[in-house]
């Protein structure tokens, strides 16, 4: 099937300037095409439109015609694009959307993983994969559906060279085997050249300015491509000179290298903690820090205000630095509206303006064009020459030429026991835990007399003790201890329930209040303990397959729970950044509430940005796929849900305990 794009224009909703302007081209099956253009030229928009994912967002107005076969879309940020908590679940997602029966799933996933050469246990958690491994896992998921068209949107720009090569190899292998069509957009495009035959060039207004055989276009349009700031073959090592001569106390620039996911970020975080501890004892030592997610450093409503927050720098000094970093036309813009690359430069500006003694940067040059890359390096070299110690985690080999020292962080992350999800982790399933907890809550309303409440709570305590003894005997004592430490808050809460129901009542009847708190203990103690047993992925499987709740919301919730750990890290980093920059508020309850509001806002903006990417990734794996008559395909489930005998025993005991307690008095 040919791809036909005819007079395609795409305008973001509510705006007048198109991202793509009157774009037309045809692609024959099996052609391999590289998309080139400056940042913001609409390359992503074109790829997302061809995949059909952008249309579902309803955030753009389209005109013209597009016809394309079903495709597989690979995005830049693999973490946002992942949708399962384990390799198996993530790879199987597309097959589930297509309604492929559970029995065939395992074979399909295994063969797709073989195609991309990802030789890891399938129940390994996504969170423990390196960036390159994760990108290959996602590619495997696309291959389960044998797409006739691969759309790659900067798939390796966040990866080190070794991992990027593995992704490219996997793509090349699939293309050779399947004869599928390829469209790829990539910043550093040289390594893709052997794979493509044709280049389409877009300009900053989203118009096609060249379309033809790759070698010919790269020759005939070299000057234009250079003026776009593209990384042309051979341009990667141009010199950046600094007018700041090294002083006597010249600082140092240390580059941390190693495969993505090897622990460069962890190393930086460790350094940060060390410096913070030192700053507390020695005082008067300033730290600058820009994490990989540079958006987290935003503070204030304008670019200028955000750069200045927490610093003593003058407005003019800040404006001059922002100009040198190519942000002068954005000074009064909302910093959230900047592109990712611009946000990285803003984060660098705000860190530099604080005049730190030590500066920690995580991947400051990702996605920068040659001009902005040179601006960043220029500032770093000048700061180093003035005496600053700079540590940079990076996979950008061009940057290494400016480093005084290169620290190699070893490759493999230690795979702890937690990295593997056992498919049958607990014998009591989420439905068993939730069901019995809710039965006890409902049953508690029949416990009216002091005797009944006492009998109820006594039975629960005895039962819980028996279960706990059993667990200790089964060798789960260590895990239990950490869970039980939270029980003191439950006991404290029960104490408070007793006191308030006693003191704030009319009768001041202590027996009545004790009955109430015993009744609450009857359901609250098990409710607390049972909550520990719930695994969100298994809960989703049960809700979808056993309770037959609608699959789409259940699956969306399961996907969201896979982001829990990442969002938790974002929260911790937000707090860190604000502390390092000196903009965290504290002290009075009012100041703390204001701080909570700012942090919640920061987290939500980051979460919604990621959510849009996740939604696109799900659409690209057929989440809304329909049959010929337009009916949504019926989803299948990769992991069958089950109910254990312990679940039934737990429901039975909940009822039995209630009945026994009611009859007792």
């Amino acid at each position, binding site marked *: 099937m040919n791809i036909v794009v005819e007079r395609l224009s795409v305008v973001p*909703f509510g705006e007048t300037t198109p991202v793509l302007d009157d774009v037309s081209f045809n692609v024959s099956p099996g052609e391999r095409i590289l998309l080139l253009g400056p940042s913001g030229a609409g390359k992503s928009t074109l790829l997302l439109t061809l995949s059909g994912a952008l249309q579902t967002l309803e955030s753009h107005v389209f005109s013209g015609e597009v016809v394309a076969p079903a495709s597989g879309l690979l995005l830049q940020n693999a973490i946002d694009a992942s949708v399962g908590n384990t390799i198996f679940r993530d790879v199987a997602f597309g097959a589930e959307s297509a309604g492929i029966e559970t029995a065939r799933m395992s074979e399909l996933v295994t063969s797709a993983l073989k195609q991309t050469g990802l030789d890891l246990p399938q129940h390994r958690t996504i969170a423990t994969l390196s960036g390159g491994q994760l990108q290959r896992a996602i590619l495997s998921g696309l291959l389960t559906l044998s797409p006739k068209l691969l759309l790659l949107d900067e798939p390796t720009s966040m990866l080190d060279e070794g991992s990027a090569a593995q992704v490219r190899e996997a793509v090349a292998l699939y293309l050779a085997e399947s004869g599928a069509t390829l469209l790829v957009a990539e910043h550093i495009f040289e390594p893709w050249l052997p794979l493509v035959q044709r280049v389409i060039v877009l300009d900053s207004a989203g118009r096609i300015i060249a379309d033809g055989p790759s070698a010919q276009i790269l020759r005939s349009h070299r000057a234009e491509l250079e003026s776009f700031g593209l990384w042309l073959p051979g341009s990667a090592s141009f010199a950046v000179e600094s007018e700041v001569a090294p002083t006597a106390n010249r600082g140092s620039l240390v580059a941390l290298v190693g495969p993505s996911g090897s622990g460069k970020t962890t190393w930086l975080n460790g350094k940060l903690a060390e410096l913070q501890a030192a700053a507390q004892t020695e005082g008067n030592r300033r730290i600058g820090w820009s994490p990989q997610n540079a958006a987290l450093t935003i503070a204030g409503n304008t670019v200028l205000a955000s750069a200045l927050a927490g610093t003593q720098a003058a407005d003019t000094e800040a404006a001059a630095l922002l100009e040198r970093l190519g942000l002068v036309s954005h000074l009064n813009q909302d910093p959230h509206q900047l592109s990712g690359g611009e946000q990285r430069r803003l984060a660098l500006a705000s860190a530099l303006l604080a005049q730190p003694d030590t500066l920690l940067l995580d991947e400051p040059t990702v996605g920068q064009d040659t001009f902005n890359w040179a601006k960043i390096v220029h500032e770093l070299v000048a700061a180093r020459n003035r005496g600053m110690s700079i540590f940079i985690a990076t996979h950008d080999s061009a940057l290494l030429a400016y480093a005084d020292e290169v620290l190699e962080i070893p490759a493999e992350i230690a795979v702890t026991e937690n990295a593997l999800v056992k498919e049958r982790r607990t014998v009591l399933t989420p439905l068993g835990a939730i069901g019995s907890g*809710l039965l006890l809550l409902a049953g508690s309303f029949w416990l009216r007399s002091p005797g009944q409440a006492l009998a109820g709570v006594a039975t629960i305590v005895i039962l819980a003790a028996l279960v706990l003894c059993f667990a200790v005997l089964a060798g789960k004592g260590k895990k239990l201890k950490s869970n039980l430490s939270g029980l003191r808050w439950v006991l404290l809460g029960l104490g408070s329930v007793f006191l308030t129901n006693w003191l704030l009542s009319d009768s001041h009847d202590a027996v009545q209040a004790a009955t109430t708190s015993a009744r609450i203990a009857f359901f*609250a103690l098990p409710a607390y303990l049972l909550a520990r047993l719930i695994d969100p992925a298994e*809960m989703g499987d049960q809700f979808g397959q056993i309770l037959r709740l609608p699959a789409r*919301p259940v699956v969306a919730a399961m996907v969201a729970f896979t982001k*829990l750990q990442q969002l938790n890290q974002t929260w911790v980093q937000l707090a860190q950044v604000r502390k390092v920059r000196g903009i965290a508020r504290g002290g009075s309850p009012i100041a703390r509430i204001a701080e909570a509001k700012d942090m919640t806002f920061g987290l939500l903006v*980051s979460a919604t940005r990621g*959510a849009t990417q996740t939604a696109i990734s799900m659409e690209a794996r057929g989440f809304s796929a329909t049959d010929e008559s337009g009916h949504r395909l019926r989803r299948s489930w990769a992991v069958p849900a089950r109910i254990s005998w312990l679940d039934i025993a737990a429901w039975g005991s909940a009822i039995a305990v209630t009945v026994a307690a009611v009859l007792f008095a």
Partner: protein
Amino acid sequence: MTTINKNAPKSAFAWRTVDLVTAAIVAVALGVAFWGYDVFVYPAVGAFTAFYPPIGELQLGVWILPAVVGMVLVRKPGAALFTELIAANVELLLGNTWGITVLVSALAQAAGVEIIFALLRYKKFSIGWAALGGAFSAVFEVFYEYYAWVPDYSVINKLIYMLCGVISGAVIAGAGGWALVQSMAKAGALSAFAAGRETK
């Protein structure tokens, strides 16, 4: 196969993928944030309310916030319930004191918002209606708490308890949730949503 389908028949009440995923991930994020408050907000506020616990109900709105945010963001039936239930599940997973019972609270805390916006036929989303939704959800939650947690309070204490809950529901959940969605829209994070388009 991909095409540009310009006049696809769409129900205003049908959830798009981006609605489902954004509401779910926002809910998880709010669950994480609430848990994060444990460290620096609750101790300060808790000390403040210890002398007269019904005042503590002034915090109730925080727990209703996901319902309002979900509804003002997605604007479709079930948005408050979906968002609130997921946020409650996050609390449960991260380890909260009252375990599985938060799921029952979640139903009560979503009910008021769902009812108010269903009556408005999902057409009006001003700050006033959001505040009313938050307050109405607080009424449901406080009635559940009367029954389950504080049955022995005297009438006057129950009234103060209700008053604090309702104020908090209207101000923190209603107005606060509405303002959060507004500032997310201003930050350009909601271009795929009606809430994001209104600010342009």
